[in-house]
């Protein structure tokens, strides 16, 4: 597998992580090593091994439709950098020229 710097730049953009060209050059081969290590799992798995997304063979873990107490609004908002009218205040979403 060969992860290009362009691949890493795209992933960084999707994850909203700012990386310099130098960092991209350094990280691409490192990530490549990790992906190779993970890929080795597929050598062990045979064709009749089902892919799985959970460690436990469970299905249908449900809860009853019952209301339980919520957090007090003051506690919810306590960690917010900015609050107005009981709401989280967030910076302008669209930049100029949007």
């Amino acid at each position, binding site marked *: 597998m060969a992860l290009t710097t362009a691949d890493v730049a795209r992933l960084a953009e999707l994850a909203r992580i700012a990386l310099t060209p130098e960092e991209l050059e350094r990280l691409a081969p490192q990530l490549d090593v990790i992906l190779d290590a993970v890929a080795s799992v597929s050598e062990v798995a045979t064709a009749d091994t089902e892919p799985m997304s959970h460690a436990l063979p469970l299905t249908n873990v449900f809860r009853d439709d019952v209301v339980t107490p919520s957090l007090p609004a003051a506690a919810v908002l306590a960690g917010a950098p900015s609050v107005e009218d009981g709401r989280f205040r967030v910076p302008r979403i*669209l930049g100029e020229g949007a």
Partner: protein
Amino acid sequence: MDDLLTYDAVLARFDPVLGLEVHVELNTASKMFCGCDNTPGGEPNTTTCPVCLGLPGSLPVVNAHAVESAIRIGLALNCQVAPWCRFARKNYFYPDMTKDFQTSQYDEPICFDGWVDVEVEGETFRIEIERVHMEEDAGKLSHVGGGTGRIVGAEYSLVDYNRAGTPLMEIVTRPVRGLGAKAPAVGRAYMAMLRDLMRALGVSDARMEAGNMRCDANVSLMPTGTAELGTRTETKNVNSLRSVEAALTYEMRRQGAILAEGGRVVQETRHWHEDGEYTSPGRNKEQAEDYRYFPEPDLVPIAPDPAWVEELRASLPELPARRRARLQEAWGFSDLEMRDVLGNEGSLDLIEATVAAGAPPAAARKWWLGELARRANEAGVELGAVGVTPEQVAQVQGLVDAGTVNDKLARSVFDGVLAGEGSPEEVVASRGLAVVSDDGALGEAVDAAIAANPDVADKIRAGKVQAAGALIGAVMKQMKGKADAARVRELLLERLS
């Protein structure tokens, strides 16, 4: 403003293709993955918890009732129910979701491959359902500054996360072709059908104006005679049945103008403006969204027990289409009469309740679609909010059937009921509206009418019975509309034969 082709010119050259994505908020007691109260409209940020705020270490657990509702919706839409499916994370960065992802379903929807029929002006159209999947709603943003309340030009935004985590069903159609001029009306009829279905199932309040049910309307134009799909646009913010029809019509005309000029339609999201009745482009995305979907590791798969699914299927309530067919037959309405009823928002329920209160179906239909529809229209309210109950309509009809009032007087009875003067019987008594059928009083009026119209009387004597109408009219006028017309006619003919 956009160039628009006339609607007829669009249809002369193109076939519209529709695709509708509808989001429905479920009315469960608690949220999709946590026990927070799902009742909308509370004080901001009072119904949130670590799960719906996505705080580290919190774990979601699926609401069993929401899964049941999703399956019942799927069954009502003739879908297959997946024997096994999972939730997925749809990753995106936007302040309406603190988790930075929406828990949704990706390639394993709980229900798929369904269909439903909708009727427009007596013609039936089949809409194929691609999928029904479960997800959660996001928080609500209010944009501040810029004056318009819109995101463009806003200085900052405020977020209320009460809605974050509300169970949301997404219902997606396959492309619907062959609709021709009726495409916008079919889109609207489909939404109305879904709304009625959700209410019949009791799974959602399905009020578009409250955002319980939201429509993303996709449309593209295919040059007539070809089979190649055109480029589609997706219009959002379509918040009423009427807007669905208007937005689809607008987009067809806008795209038609572009294509007729040899241009290319841009695949984009557009925003419907209710006030000016037009669409405008949404944010231009430089590249297709990449949501990096992956299976939700915090939730185990769902594998509905087939016996449970069959139980849910067997316990589905009577669905709207079936109910309509049953009522039409029971009431003996013609197709045309039924179409009038269905075309008049809310009248089916009102007529049913009026019939249940004892009125003959034809009379119930006559009052609701005639006199009361007119009054609702004048007052600019929905029929159900006109101010007269089905019971009162049945009582008025009872007075008509008993000969106490005629149709004309019945209208005055409605005036009194609407003015808060009490029950129909009380209004008749207090306004003195009862028909006079006493032969003494009527006889005098009849004699007076004959005396005042000797020419007409002679004609009737000579055998022209149809001329009696003029004399009956004269009697009615003299009696201020309160005469029993049938008895007046009898008395007239007795005297003139």
